[in-house]
């Protein structure tokens, strides 16, 4: 088993929590795992990416290269588009349909790419695209978009729902555990 998962989004959307949950679960199940993440300036609303590499063999480089991602989990549509070159042939995409306008678009300097939907659909081996923000709000908070998407992508990951619940309990602040569990379960049904 070898899975390369790229989690992409906008700084502040919580890509880190998603990767930490995934990483801890992989460790518990006896896989080797490496993660690479972004701290610093980009966290202020810039584009952010977290690499998660899980394998029953040794993981060397913590980075997923172009063409190596088995799964891309995108918290925002433009970010899904931006990171497409990293998707492996036949790779799966989980995309939040939400659009967050970057400042150059708001200022009218460039346009939000209208062709994004079409190119994402054409490139993905399989595409699951839905409004994760709406699902998160239903689950109790717009901040839970990250865990909703993780729930959705869990179908392609070798862990049971029970294992996911445990890792959420162990890694999320107690007062947010129920919210995140609900978000995960609803995401898994999306």
């Amino acid at each position: 088993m070898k899975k390369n998962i790229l989690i992409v989004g906008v700084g502040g959307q919580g890509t880190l929590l998603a990767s930490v949950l995934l990483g801890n679960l992989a460790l518990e199940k006896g896989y080797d795992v490496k993660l690479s993440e972004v701290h610093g300036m980009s966290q202020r609303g810039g584009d952010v990416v977290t690499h998660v590499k899980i394998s029953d063999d040794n993981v060397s480089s913590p980075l997923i290269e172009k063409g190596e991602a088995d799964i891309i989990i995108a918290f925002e549509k433009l970010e899904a588009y931006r990171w497409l070159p990293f998707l492996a042939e036949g790779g799966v995409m989980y995309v939040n349909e939400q659009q967050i306008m970057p400042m150059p678009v708001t200022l009218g300097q460039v346009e939000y790419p209208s062709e994004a939907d079409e190119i994402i659909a054409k490139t993905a081996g399989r595409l699951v695209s839905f409004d994760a923000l709406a699902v998160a709000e239903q689950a109790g908070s717009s901040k839970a978009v990250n865990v909703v998407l993780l729930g959705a992508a869990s179908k392609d990951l070798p862990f049971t729902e029970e294992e996911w619940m445990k890792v959420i309990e162990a890694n999320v602040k107690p007062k947010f555990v129920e919210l995140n569990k609900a978000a995960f379960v609803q995401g898994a049904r999306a």
Partner: protein
Amino acid sequence: MKRIMLGNEAFARGAWEAGVRVVSSYPGTPSTEVTEALTKCGDEIHVEWAPNEKVGVEVAFGACLGGARALSTMKHVGLNVAADPFYTAAYNGVNGGLVLLVADDNGCHSSQNEQDSRFHGRSAGVPVFEPSDPQECKDFMIAAYDLSEKYDTVVLMKSGTRISHSRGIVEEGEREEREVIPYEKNFQKYVSMPAMARKLHVAQEKRLAQIAEDAKAITAGGQPINRVEMNDPKIGIVTSGICYQYVREALPQASVFKMGIISPMPMADIAEFASKVEKLYVIEEGLPFFEEQIRAAGIPVHGGKDMFTIQGEYSANLIREAFGISVPKAALDENADIAAAPGRPPLLCAGCPHKGLFYVLSKLKTTVMGDIGCYTLAALPPTNAIDTCLCMGGSIGMEHGFEKATGSSKNLVAVLGDSTFLHSGITGLLNMVYNEATGTVIILDNRITGMTGHQQNPGSGKNAKGETAPAVNFEELVTALGVKNVTVVDPFEVKELEEIIRRETERDELSVIITRRPCVMITKQTGTPNVITDECRNCRQCLKIGCPTIEVKDGKPFIVQTNCIGCGLCSRVCPFDAIKAVKEGR
């Protein structure tokens, strides 16, 4: 127990297990989480944020003299600030073990340059360690303290973005409590006056030669710290750190000499390795630090910087391409032009206190000598309100020089954050007083060190562990330096702020304006979201503050309700009073 750890957490764990007692650092991406992790330890360690790296290294050196194992961490440019104590401590050697951790940033993820700290290490004459994954971060830290005490030397631990900010599995160990080593007066060793310094330099050369000779026997985590992985002898690679991981990924068949101690280089061992392989390659990010030394030792190098760039980060694909190996096949159609997708530059947060100031400076078309912090982002559209940014505290000196060159300080200001001012702005301001400047310095007092993830500082009223601590009074401090015109203002009072900036920049005397409002990431302020009502005449004044939650929808400004924190800045700049707080909650 095995745990997933960030490289920086693993460094911290290693220091803790090695019995470190004193830690003094200044934050800087990508190094910050090492010291941050140590603040969560108990009383067995004294951990503090120093006002800058120079002080941090001096404190750590003092602690090592006092006989404790000590640590100071910093980003690459921080070592420039600390270079003065570093280069001489490198002569003195240690009493308790001393490790200085420096994190480079190839690829400039969060930095102003791609400075290569290996040169600092070599030039100062200290051994430099470089781990390649989180487990090694921990193991090398422990080995570094042992080596520091055994060979009587400061050790430089070199990290980088991909080492510090990658996570991997780490096996935890126990802490080894160490008695403080009694201090013995020894001015020949600890007073670097010329007569002593000359001898100390000779001693330093000797111990470096000894370390290079002993390298084969030095271990970390039970493994040789420099190791040879003999595979196919056709290709032999000399490498270290994160590049080792890329090499393993791209060239699994190659033979590899992986260095853990990268300076002094184990040249005899490299020569032996070179003799066993057909072609020797050197793979290192940045300048040809290894390559030039290997060539100078008379060892033929088949490929180095003639194959690889000195800019940016490497990757497995970069190595594959250089060796003519096919890269993984991507799903994306080769003709798709994704590069044309709009960029997503970082922005000041919704509700950021700095926004009010830069809205005004942008409006007044002021020439702004900038500095380093979240507020540097104001250089980007829509405010475009920063003219230059050099180094921590640099804004003040630049403003002074600019005035002396042009003969005027009208509509000219220096801006710098509270943490940056305390780091290295005070001396610049003193210089302005002393040399009779007439300029205006604006201190952006958001009560925290924002950019690096909200560390406390001497102005914030809390220490590294979050306990109450004395807070410097900025007004009194600048007054004591001799500044006569000091004004404090809330940067969200944009009208008042504008008047003050006009008045103070016109004045033929030096002034300081302190814009005081806490960072929203620490206040976690939430208010009623604002909406743009039908009164809106589409003048787009509100877009000029650069709030990330104001977008344009159907040709008109629109506030994304889920992200608006209700700070009210947009309603203050709207000339038609069209922006209101909505009554119903979210």
